[in-house]
């Protein structure tokens, strides 16, 4: 099925765009904005607003219809719909399939000081009504907090015999998170630990695709909670256990 954006009528293709250009707010600016919108595939772009931002910049708001459409058959979301399981179901699963205590070690790494995200997943209280991992039976959840250097993180993981590593990254400006996340993978490989852990990244700007690309097993973004992470990790541990035999 081919779909297009929807303004008020099926297949009308309507989108809204805004951007700043590093030129003055004059007729040339307007035309440049229109042409840019055209290059972005808008048919008959309508520059509905031009605003002077000082002498050397100008801001534009554009509406128009895109010619392109998306074939839904081409969309292959890596089947990463974590099964919706309740805490009780997950606890049950650990009991019957793994029958041991699992160790989850988490931290906000590098210079990142944001703890609310990792706390949301790990701490007793959880977030938005979803209890955190600390409250799960058969899970030992160790939250190392924030600003944890990768080296320290790996050291603790080793010490605690972690099954699952949870890494949170919030600051993404100039792609600082990419460097940080990749460094951790390299460090784990150097320590020959990479295969022994389920390695999970998370944060407001983290997607599963990105995490996979960087060498993680999974990535979780906004609106994901402890049960999503736990379900994924436990199923993955079970899968790995079965593979071993």
């Amino acid at each position: 099925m081919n779909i297009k954006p929807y303004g008020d009528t099926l297949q009308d293709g309507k989108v809204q765009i805004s951007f700043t250009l590093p030129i003055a707010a004059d007729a040339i600016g307007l035309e440049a904005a229109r042409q840019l919108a055209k290059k972005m595939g808008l048919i008959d772009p309508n520059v509905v607003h031009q605003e002077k931002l000082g002498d050397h910049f100008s801001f534009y708001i554009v509406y128009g219809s895109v010619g392109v459409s998306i074939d839904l058959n081409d969309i292959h979301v890596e089947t990463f719909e974590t099964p919706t399981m309740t805490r009780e179901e997950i606890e049950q699963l650990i009991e019957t399939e793994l029958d041991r205590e699992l160790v989850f070690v988490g931290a906000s790494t590098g210079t990142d000081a944001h703890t609310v995200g990792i706390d949301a997943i790990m701490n007793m209280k959880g977030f938005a009504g979803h209890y955190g991992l600390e409250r799960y039976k058969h899970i030992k959840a160790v939250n190392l907090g924030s600003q944890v250097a990768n080296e320290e993180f790996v050291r603790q993981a080793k010490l605690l015999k972690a099954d699952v590593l949870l890494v949170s990254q919030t600051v993404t400006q100039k792609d600082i998170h990419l460097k940080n996340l990749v460094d951790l993978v390299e460090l784990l490989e150097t320590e020959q630990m990479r295969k022994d852990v389920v390695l999970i990244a998370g944060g407001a700007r983290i997607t599963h695709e990105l995490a996979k690309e960087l060498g993680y097993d999974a990535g979780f973004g906004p609106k994901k909670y402890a049960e999503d992470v736990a379900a994924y990790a436990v199923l993955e541990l079970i899968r790995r256990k079965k593979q071993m035999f």
Partner: protein
Amino acid sequence: MNKLNLDQKTIESCRIHANAIAEKIVRFIDNHTTVSVERSILRLLGVDGVDRYQVPLVNRLVDDCLQQRNCGEGISRYLAASLKNTQRNLADFLVAYQAGKATLAKDPASVEETLAILKPWIDQGLKKIQEQKELRNHWINTYGTAKTQIYVIVATGNIHEDVIQAQAAARAGADIIAVIRSTGQSLLDYVPYGITTEGFGGTYATQANFRLMRQALDEVSKDVGRYIRLVNYASGLCMPEIAAMAALERLDILLNDSLYGIIFRDINMQRTFIDQNFSRLINAYAGILINTGEDNYLTTSDAVEEAHTVLASQFINEAFAKKAHLSASLMGLGHAFEIDPEIENSFLFEIAQAEMAREIFPDAPLKYMPPTKHISGNIFRATMQNALFNLATVMTDQSIHLLGMMTEAIHTPFLSDRFLAIDSAKTIQKTAKSFREAIDYREGGVIHTRAREVLQKAKLLLGDVEKTGLFNALENGVFAGVKRPFQGGKGLEGVYVKDKDYVNPIALRMEEFFR
């Protein structure tokens, strides 16, 4: 509790002036009828359908009456005579008439005969309206009514697309859905027929479209546990006909204001005052709430200087509505948040205006319009302006909250525009829930002072209009600075002086109901 403590004597004076103003016009109205009034009677008797040129039968019949006979006697008397002459019931007569096998009687029946002959169809029409009214009351009693109802528009031109969007909006939290009409419909001297899928800046108001949308909203009402109200426009050249159709199809609210038509659509003033009167009677009978169009004035004239004209017009509209038996609970007087935000203290002026309306018309379900004129293509700025408007709505306890759209200056709303607007309105309703009860307006503060000034000026204006008469006042351009001649504009050719034996059997029965 009154928050402004406006002078009750001044308010009373305003009402006295307004009543006198309306009184004079009503005397004029009582002596006249129009083609649209006559067509409405036919519609309520059950005449429906179009000929093969898409001309509605009600137009054909009234045109026949005009061409060969005198409309001032009333179409009903000719229809009654036709039934009598052809010995047919209404349905059969219409089939024959349409097939060219019967014509409208040359001479009218007497008034008594007319009432007797048409009784079954009058009864049937009125019964249908009563049933719809009861059904509405049932829904409302079941689900209750929000203190502030969220009102959004759909306007794709395609009724099917409108339905999708109306349902989605209702699920997102809208309480009221208005289907905006295609531009130009108000100038048509007939009502288009059937389901329509093409319109410009709106969707044609047709009885079939009404029915389709009503059904869709009933469906969604059950799902969301709120009765979703449906709105259209009884405005322009077919005011009473749309009211009749709305009564039959259970619309809940009608934009219904001749002043709007006169000023913004250049409809002839005689024509539209007469039309309005019957349309409001129908609305009163059907329990349909009206919305008046004062909000529009400030889109044309200066919102700071002309604020009092809005209030004056509300008083006049109230007087007209009373005369047509509309109770206060059906008078959705209009006003708007239209002052340029670049003007110092304009937000306070807005609050003053909105609070004043609330205090003066405590029982009226006021309709509060969002900023439109001072919205530009800057959708982010528009979002900010709408947030202030949403807060003003909560602060001043408005009843019908028409949501501002961030794309107001660009196009009729996209699906997403409506969602974002509903999100903003509902969030502000919540976050500022008891704001009204947590603050008082300070005596001598800008809000207080402004409200007093505007009320005072409205009183003076009403006094003047009473002296010159409303017709003259409109000729002089009191509202929105627009001048309209008594004999000018569209639709004057459809106005007729009533014969002494004129009868409007529907109006008679409705008037009886209110006695």
